[in-house]
């Protein structure tokens, strides 16, 4: 590793900055120009989003236009549509609570002390049951709400989490089959992965939503939402399986040999030696795949579900707020940002944590 800035002294740090930004006439010029561009963009955004913006639920198109900046009133008035979609208005506290449950489950699973099979299984089972009970209702005096009426943030979170939770074991399974000693099994798994990867996600979602009911026996059809989720999970699994395979390839052959020589069985070798190291190696690509999966939840709108982005779209489709689409998109983007940025930072934390003692210097 090269010396990073915090290993240098103060004077050396200043010198490095000066050399980096003003070392030659050209770099001084570039520094000044890009500084000016950044300042200009920042000022425009600040001016629009804050200085001249209109806040509060009583803003209208006229008052907003008079102020000249962003019209955050649309969020103040329509936030419940954006966050919860067409979920019955009086019951939306259940949606909010369900979001909180998902949040707590995700945060708990991120804590290293929770990383045992038993604890994770308990948290996730409990979380799923509570989420489903809250959202679906029909028990404990809660009004039943059909999956078709779920919408907004809880739906987005549900799709993402379910895709990952169902998709990851599938991915591990496919990746393990693909490295099987038996060529037939390895090849079949490879074909499955390549087939799914060569289909667009949209086609898979449509197939699961519309075509599958004609092909499956009645008792297997189930709710449309779950069929679509299965499709999304399959798609996730195909890509993630290849990421895990990349991790497998980075593990020296000697690791499995040592485990064999110690008498460990196939499953013990797989779960104690091979997979932990494969996931370490595949971590950056895995986080990337999670981020993509989060973004792709917005595609589910094409089969008739009003997830976060679609709910945002409806929020400004009413006559009064037609002009305020930029504000709604910024708001929705901020929500995506919070989750995806959090995910990326967590990935960086994991990498740093795993590097402790792993590398020699």
């Amino acid at each position, binding site marked *: 590793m090269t010396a990073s800035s915090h290993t240098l002294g103060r004077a050396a740090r200043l010198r490095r900055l000066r050399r980096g930004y003003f070392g030659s006439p050209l770099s001084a010029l570039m520094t000044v120009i890009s500084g000016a561009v950044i300042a200009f963009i920042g000022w425009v955004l600040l001016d629009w989003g804050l200085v001249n913006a209109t806040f509060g639920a009583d803003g209208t198109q006229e008052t907003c236009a008079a102020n000249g900046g962003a019209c955050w009133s649309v969020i103040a008035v329509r936030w419940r549509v954006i966050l919860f979609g067409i979920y019955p208005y009086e019951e939306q506290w259940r949606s909010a609570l369900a979001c909180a449950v998902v949040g707590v489950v995700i945060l708990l699973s991120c804590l290293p002390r929770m990383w045992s099979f038993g604890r994770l299984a308990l948290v996730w089972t409990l979380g799923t049951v509570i989420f489903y009970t809250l959202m679906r209702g029909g028990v404990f005096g809660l009004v039943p709400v059909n999956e078709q009426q779920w919408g907004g943030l809880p739906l987005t979170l549900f799709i993402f989490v379910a895709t990952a939770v169902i998709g990851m074991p599938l991915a591990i399974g496919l990746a393990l089959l693909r490295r099987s000693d038996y060529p037939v099994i390895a090849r079949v798994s490879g074909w499955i992965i390549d087939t799914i990867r060569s289909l667009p996600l949209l086609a898979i979602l449509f197939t699961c939503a519309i075509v599958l009911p004609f092909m499956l026996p009645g008792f297997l059809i189930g709710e449309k939402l779950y069929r679509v989720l299965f499709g999304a999970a399959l798609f996730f699994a195909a890509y993630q399986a290849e990421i895990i395979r990349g991790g497998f390839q980075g593990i020296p052959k*000697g690791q499995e040999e*040592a*485990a064999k020589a*110690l008498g460990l069985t196939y499953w*013990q070798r797989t779960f104690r030696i091979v997979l932990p190291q494969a996931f370490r190696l595949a971590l950056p690509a895995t986080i990337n795949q999670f981020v993509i999966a989060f973004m792709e939840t917005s595609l589910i709108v094409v089969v008739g579900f009003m997830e976060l982005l679609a709910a945002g779209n409806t929020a400004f489709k009413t006559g009064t707020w037609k002009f305020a689409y930029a504000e709604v998109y910024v708001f929705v983007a901020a929500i995506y940002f919070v989750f995806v940025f959090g995910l990326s930072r967590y990935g960086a934390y994991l990498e740093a944590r795993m590097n402790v*003692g792993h*590398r020699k210097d």
Partner: protein
Amino acid sequence: MDMTAPAIEITDLNKYYGAFHALRGINLTVSRGEKVVVCGPSGSGKSTMIRCINQLEEHDSGTIQVFGTLVDDNLASLDEIRREVGMVFQQFNLFPHMTVLENCTLAPMLVRKISRADAEATAMRYLEKVRIPDQAQKFPGQLSGGQQQRVAIARALCMQPEILLFDEPTSALDPEMIAEVLDVMVTLAQEGMTMVCVTHEMGFARKVADRVIFMDKGEIIEEAPPETFFSHPRNERTRLFLSQVLGH
């Protein structure tokens, strides 16, 4: 397993890599407590041979028996054999994501089904034996090559095997670290462990081997006690090899 049977009995062992005949009719018997050193030029099949004993390599014909148990397609007997046959590798092959202590306790807990407390007590005993108990909480990546190889020996010992196989244990080490690993191996030999060592350390062979075996081109060319082997090698190829390893 029959502890009165020979520790290892190899009969007419053949192994091919495609068209390449890697092992040609190997016959070798190792009794319990015996120390055998296998040497020979690279590509002579010595590593392949010992890797067949615990089936890291599968042989094509011939038989291998460990304490009378046949090495074959029967998974149960393979498990049994691997429990009793420890192995130390050239590249150490410690598990990098586990501490030294976890490296040593994993297999005893999973394979021998002993409790964590017992496994840790045993592990500390063997870490003391290889003289690095103070490194127990470190990760392999934080240790020197010599220390890693001593941990690898301790890890193998924690399974309390009857036989230890060494596959060029000092070949990947810097010269100043070879001695610390050989010292540990000498101690083990003196305590009566059954050992088969593939190594070029002729000093070690002289000191502890009951028998030295010379292999070339997949065959055993010569086998003799170290005194005879070094002073009166019978075969021309052995003489050439010895002059190369001992010559300078």
